[in-house]
């Protein structure tokens, strides 16, 4: 035999709609300053966070992910039964077995879709977006739901001022479908596993620790090339970028990246970290949802995305907003 038969895929994939879920409880810097040695000025100057959301017990990863997924489905105009692939990017799953994506998919009413969790740290949602777009292109799926959901507070020592002021909870999602005109560009992804301990739960411990200077150095020196390559592979330049939405790890990293890319004045830069904190794999879809809701970003805008974090992992791509 000369080889196996393959399914026909779509010319490209595009994002049809976004949705998000922000936990009810707002936690301000002043509130944190009551229980630990920190203050609003210090936090704003170092990481740019004014407030963040912390999930309450009933706002489980399942509930938040399903809520964001449901809103993305509503925005896309698709019914859950039309989704045949559900990916949940998360670095804060409540348990190793079973995975959560099948339960989220069931909750939403999807009919026996392919479903799996994906952990690529804070780069998870951008990894999952690429995997879903490739599945649609190859014919493995027709419509996909890509969720980034985190309850990082479950894995944060909420009395540790080096991490408690940064990490937060939430979920964001997008629905993807086939398109003759591609709306998800080629991914530029990779990993630097020699720095696996830079963001980690150390052995025998229950909470994350982060080598802040090392991560800051890596993010501000190694990822500009990733972004430039992502634009080049998608056939666009900095002057074409309407929206820049990198992972919301630290406002200073966001600003430095934007400066190094020489993005035009008109480019809308996602600064959702100011009110959401660092929500790992939820941060990019949360930021994009907020920009679309506020009208700062519009349908048809070209957005440059970048996820990066624990692993260390990174993934950048250019997308067209729905």
């Amino acid at each position, binding site marked *: 035999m000369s080889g196996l038969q393959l399914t026909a895929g779509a010319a490209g994939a595009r994002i049809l709609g976004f949705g998000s879920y922000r936990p009810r409880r707002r936690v301000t810097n002043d509130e944190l300053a009551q229980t630990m040695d920190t203050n609003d000025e210090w936090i704003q100057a*170092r990481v740019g966070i004014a407030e963040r959301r912390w999930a309450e017990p009933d706002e489980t990863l399942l509930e938040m992910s399903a809520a964001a997924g449901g809103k993305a489905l509503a925005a896309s105009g698709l019914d859950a039964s039309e989704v045949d692939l559900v990916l949940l990017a998360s670095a804060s799953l409540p348990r190793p077995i079973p995975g959560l994506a099948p339960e989220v998919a069931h909750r939403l009413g999807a009919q026996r879709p392919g479903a799996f969790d994906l952990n690529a740290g804070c780069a998870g949602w951008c990894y999952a977006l690429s995997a879903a777009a490739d599945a649609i292109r190859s014919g493995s799926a027709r419509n996909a739901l890509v969720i980034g959901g985190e309850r990082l507070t479950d894995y944060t020592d909420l009395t540790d001022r080096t991490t408690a002021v940064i990490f937060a909870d939430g979920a964001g999602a997008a629905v993807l479908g086939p398109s003759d005109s591609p709306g998800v560009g080629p991914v530029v992804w990779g990993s630097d596993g020699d720095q696996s301990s830079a963001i980690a739960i150390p052995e025998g411990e229950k909470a994350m620790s982060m080598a802040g200077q090392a991560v*800051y*150095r890596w993010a501000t020196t190694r990822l500009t090339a990733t972004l430039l390559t992502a634009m080049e592979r998608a056939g666009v330049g900095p002057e074409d970028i309407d929206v820049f939405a990198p992972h919301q790890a630290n406002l200073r990293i966001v600003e430095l990246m934007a400066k190094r890319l020489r993005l035009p004045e008109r480019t809308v830069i996602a600064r959702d970290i100011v009110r959401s904190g660092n929500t790992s794999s939820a941060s990019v879809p949360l930021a994009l949802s907020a920009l679309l809701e506020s009208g700062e970003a519009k349908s048809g805008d070209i957005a440059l995305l970048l996820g990066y974090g624990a692993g260390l992992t990174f993934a950048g791509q250019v997308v067209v907003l729905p």
Partner: protein
Amino acid sequence: MSEDIQTGLAEILEEVAGVAPADATPEKSFTEDLDVDSLSMVEIATAVEDKFGVAIPDDELANIKTVGDAMSYIQKNKA
């Protein structure tokens, strides 16, 4: 040579942390006198690496407390 280093370092300090060049004198402590925080130190280190062709790993960076420390480090490790 060391004047070139001091001038180059002062330019970096002005660009990264808004330090007036006249304030970038050897005895000044980055954190105590010049209000440079730990993340700006990383930016200064990477800018120094680019400008002078020296490598400043994080563990070496931790020992650089003053402008003079940085100048000696650059002088010693310059290619």
